[in-house]
């Protein structure tokens, strides 16, 4: 079961979640796939959540893990968050941690060197 699709943009690697629910069922595998991308040298990432309808705390925690794996050597911004999913970011105050953009193009531009 594929969880993500990647597309190389001049400014960042765009990673689109292709599951409608980013939850505890897939959080561990998602984290592993993302960590692999980071360890391969992709340090500017756009996480495209435009296809995600629901995220739980495990899914959100997995995204936080990715940010921590990147540390200070890179950045991860988020694109395409639907209104319902935004609820989770607001309730947990993660909307103050991540830069959120309406679409992946704008998000990638924000990571231009």
């Amino acid at each position: 079961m594929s969880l993500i699709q990647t597309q190389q943009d001049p400014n960042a690697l765009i990673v689109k979640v292709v599951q409608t629910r980013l939850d505890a069922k897939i959080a561990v595998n998602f984290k592993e796939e993302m960590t692999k991308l980071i360890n391969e040298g992709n340090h500017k990432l756009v996480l495209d959540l435009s296809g995600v309808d629901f995220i739980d705390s495990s899914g959100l925690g997995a995204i936080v893990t990715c940010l921590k794996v990147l540390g200070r050597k890179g950045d991860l911004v988020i694109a395409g968050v639907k209104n319902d999913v935004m609820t989770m970011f607001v309730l947990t105050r993660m909307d103050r941690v991540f830069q959120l953009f309406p679409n992946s193009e704008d998000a990638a531009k924000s990571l231009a060197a």
Partner: protein
Amino acid sequence: MAKIQFRIEGHLENVALVGQAINTICTSVCSTSTAYQVEIAVVEICNNIIEHAYAQSSGMIDIALLLNGTELQLEFTDTGAAMPERLEAAPTLDFDPEKREELPEGGMGLFLIDTIMDSSETRRIQETNVLTVRKQLRTRQ
């Protein structure tokens, strides 16, 4: 007063179904955004049961939904390991958004349940854990 009962095997792949079902039921009396928040709480509760109460065993989760007007009550029963009693203080989620290395990766579930629902009560009855949560649903505009 309406009462609906659900029973799922305590596996993570079953959680989405019960969350979505309860979301749909709630939309009959409240806004979709409130129903979505209830789904978040249901999912977090079921995840907690599976990952903690059933960490060393397996079993069923029984969920009784009681809707009395706009008062929602959900009762979760499992036969797993004893869960901690309700915390005296409400769970908090304190962090500095600027300190990336200190951001929480876990522990958000209890905070979400406490934030979304109006009240929660945990009891150990013989060999079962019973968690009851309640929320006054705002009527749909």
